[in-house]
């Protein structure tokens, strides 16, 4: 794990209220798996005492660059959106355990993402697609919010759903899962809690991995802010330390 300043290479609007920020720094050398996240300091001084967690959407150890895709929610993301090329950003990471993809081969993979749950799936799909057949179902609020469709298209068979039907099929990602009637060996999902629950139910019996969000304090496992009930002997997991990616059969959402 590394803590320090990384350099903003670019920061641009890619969909409604959604930004893509490319950053460069040595922490990229420490990223082990897609699905890990970074904990980002907001602003100067002591106004913002809590860092903000963001998934690493993509990374490249050769260029030392990594990518965050984030949605404007409140003060922290608004501040982030105002950063410009050449600014520096105080980042702690990579944190957490990513998607266990080592050795996955010749599998039929389903990837299901919703909203800002889409970014952590991007590098995952990129890596999995080399040796597997990947279907990606991506859900957004409406046509204005859609991002990364082309990027995913390069690596997977992509299906888009929007809440209002303004693009792709209308409705939930789980509707698309049902319609497609796919044969699946393993699935991976990230998105809002409601969506994750539906996906977890819908895919019961399948091997699957979920990336889970929760409000965080420390981001490193010390404060117990981010726990989630789990079917293990402790009765819980810490999302920042044991996750954010979990075996779908182990966590109780």
């Amino acid at each position: 794990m590394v803590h320090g300043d990384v350099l903003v290479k670019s920061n641009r609007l890619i969909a409604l209220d959604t930004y893509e920020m490319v950053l460069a720094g040595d922490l990229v050398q420490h990223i082990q798996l897609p699905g890990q996240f970074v904990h980002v300091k907001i602003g100067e001084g002591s106004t913002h005492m809590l860092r903000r967690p963001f998934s690493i959407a993509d990374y490249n150890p050769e260029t030392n660059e990594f990518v965050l895709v984030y949605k404007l929610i409140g003060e922290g993301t608004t501040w982030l959106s105002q950063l410009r090329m050449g600014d520096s950003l105080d980042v702690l990471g990579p944190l957490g355990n990513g998607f266990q993809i080592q050795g996955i081969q010749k599998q039929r993979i389903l990837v299901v993402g919703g909203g800002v749950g889409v970014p952590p799936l991007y590098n995952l799909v990129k890596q999995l697609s080399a040796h597997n057949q990947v279907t990606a179902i991506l859900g957004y609020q409406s046509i204005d919010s859609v991002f990364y469709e082309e990027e995913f298209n390069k690596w997977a068979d992509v299906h888009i759903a929007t809440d209002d039907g303004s693009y792709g099929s209308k409705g939930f990602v789980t509707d698309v899962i049902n319609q497609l009637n796919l044969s699946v060996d393993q699935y991976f999902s990230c998105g809002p809690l409601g969506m994750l629950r539906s996906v977890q139910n819908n895919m019961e019996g399948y091997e699957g991995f979920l990336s889970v969000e929760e409000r965080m304090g420390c981001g490193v496992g010390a404060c117990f802010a981010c726990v989630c009930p789990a079917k293990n002997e402790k009765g819980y997991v810490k999302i920042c330390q044991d996750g954010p990616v979990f075996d779908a059969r182990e966590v109780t959402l």
Partner: protein
Amino acid sequence: MNLSVRLGELELKNPIMPASGCFGFGKEFSQFYNLNNLGAIVIKAATGEARFGNPTPRVAETPSGMLNAIGLQNPGVDQIFEQELPFLESFDTPVIANVAGSTEDEYLSVSEKLSNSKTVKALELNISCPNVKEGGIQFGTDPELAYQLTRRVKNVIDKPLFVKLSPNVTDIVGIAKAIEEAGADGLSMINTLTGMKIDLKTHQPIIANETGGLSGPAIKPIAIRMIHHVRKETRLPIIGMGGIVSAEDVLEFLLAGADAVAIGTANFQNPYICQEIIDTLPDVLESYGYQSLDQVREVAMQ
């Protein structure tokens, strides 16, 4: 500069320690720096049995502060004894164990068990947690209850006992004096102030527990005031806390009357903060004309 301080029987390399609940049982932060550098380590509250704590969300950000309602999640005193303390044993830094409970009996049995650990050098009695329905805070808001509990705990342990005060009271000095009379060896102050933040979208409190404890720089003026007032009325060593983010803040707490300080929320913003403060404290003290911590204390006593 020699930064060592003495809190009664307890000898610390320096006056800087992480605050209970913000540093787990030390393991995570040992990735960032050597825990031997710390003055002490205050570990997360222990209760008799394992507790899951409150539902999530458990934290929210506020201007220059945060709310938390962890609800004393911990693996229970026996697990802590067996699973967590051995790791800390390898460091040459005194461990202060924070004790919580729902009943007097629970406080007593947890205190007794922890005081049997050779790693634990002192106890910190948490009678000020605002985030659990029963136990905790009522002991910290009623001088009579605080007196009784302190006395009984003191009877079953043979280690120095610090009692951690709640700021959610009309008369902090009255509570502090009751605790001193009961035989405590020191005071820790302050715990968090009860607060709330409402999510404008859901119109519900952000913290699932509704209220949470306010910590961070926002509460520093309240901590400084309370320490200053309590210092005038007691000789007990005081571990000061509440909003420290810099070595300058540490000096302010020492001038208010604290003998050592604990750092909580700031660990989340900067995981190296305790180490950084230890490193910069001598220069900061010198820049204000102090050659030693004793000098600071003398000035504070005037």
